């Protein structure tokens, strides 16, 4: 059944826009990202699965924003720095390994879901269990992704210090 975009926006639009505002820190870009999320929802509606659109849309918003941050030359520098700073700040309860500007570079090589997971963990402050629940994965599966991610971060960090 075709998605009623007005009804979906009415229900989920505010949540998506808030998410985009939080990550992009700029109203115009957040509005642009929010629309892009719904365009993708329409484009891929036949492939969508799951009982809770909110979960999917929240993650889509995260992914769209990360892509925007990465791809926008106009404002990428400042905004990437803000996000990286946010991640770094939020990661202080963990190991402060996200302090370098190459996080964005590193992110490019990651699966979209891994990027979303890292944002949920280190920007949103969610636990491994919560992230696992959000992604429908086992905790050990998420832990493994995090471990692999950190290993790559550490390797890159050591490489850059050589």
């Amino acid at each position, binding site marked *: 059944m075709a998605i009623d975009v007005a009804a979906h926006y009415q229900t989920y639009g505010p949540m998506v826009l808030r998410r985009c505002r939080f990550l992009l820190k700029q109203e115009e870009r957040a*509005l642009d990202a929010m629309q892009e999320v719904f365009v993708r929802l329409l484009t891929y509606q036949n492939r969508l699965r799951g009982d809770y659109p909110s979960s999917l849309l929240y993650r889509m918003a995260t992914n769209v924003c990360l892509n925007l941050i990465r791809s926008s030359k*106009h404002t990428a520098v400042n905004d990437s720095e803000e996000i990286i700073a946010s991640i770094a700040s939020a990661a202080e309860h963990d190991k402060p390994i996200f302090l370098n500007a190459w996080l964005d570079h590193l992110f490019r090589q990651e699966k979209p879901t891994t990027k979303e997971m890292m944002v949920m963990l280190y920007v949103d402050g969610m*636990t491994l269990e919560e992230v696992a629940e959000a992604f429908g994965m086992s905790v050990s599966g998420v832990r493994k992704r995090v471990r692999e991610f950190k290993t790559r971060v550490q390797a890159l960090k050591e490489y850059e210090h050589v």
Partner: protein
Amino acid sequence: MSNPLSDYWLERYALDELPQAKREEIRILLQADPGLQQRLRELTQSNDAILRHYPATAMADRIRERQLGGTTADRTVPNTHVTWARPGWMFPAGTVAVAAALALWIMPAWLLPQLHPGAGLEITRLKGMESGLTIYRQHQGNAELLKPFAFARHGDLLQIAYVSLTEPYGVIISIDGRGTATLHFPENNQTASKLQIKHKTLLPKAYELDNAPGFERFFLITSVTPISPLDILRAARTLAQTPHLAKTESLPLNRNLHQYSVVIQKSERQ
């Protein structure tokens, strides 16, 4: 459960889209935490404010237009900024071919009226090109691609580019939030409306946004036969006089004419 509760869960709680166990877990937290109750109230207030500021009907139109038309919102090319050429180094002899070869496809037409006077400037040929309009804004010496519904403001200098893949006749007009219609191409309503086809072509003059409120909506109308600019202007004025439809509806024109439009929103910030 992390502390504080993440927005991810609170949003989904507010939407009543949680498994029963999780919902119950958050309900108990809410009962004991005035701060969390306040966040939930703020979230509800934020919902109302967003829907008031960006109403569902208007946003749904934008989203559909972006999906269907998406005339210039190139979501596959992340770099939406291209070099704003300077005449000293961009246009030595044989420059158009060089520029095309380099795929630097934006040049300020007002700097180059002598190249193709009145006809616009062919820039490049690109695979995957679609008929439609592209709007650029001069920004700090660069040409910034304005996506549909991007914000611009009074005084911004806009450059219009068009592509018509097959139809050799066309008119470009804009309507604004004040109900005014402006003819951009051809240069006056008496001249021929012949388009360059299969090329991205800049109009010979840039356009400075005035202080009309709300929006500026640009239309490209194409046809296989000559078009009367006056007829298009007349239709544009009719639509422009209906503010609640002007941003979303098509011009009242014969179905044989194809319409492409891009809406630029007016930002009040200076």
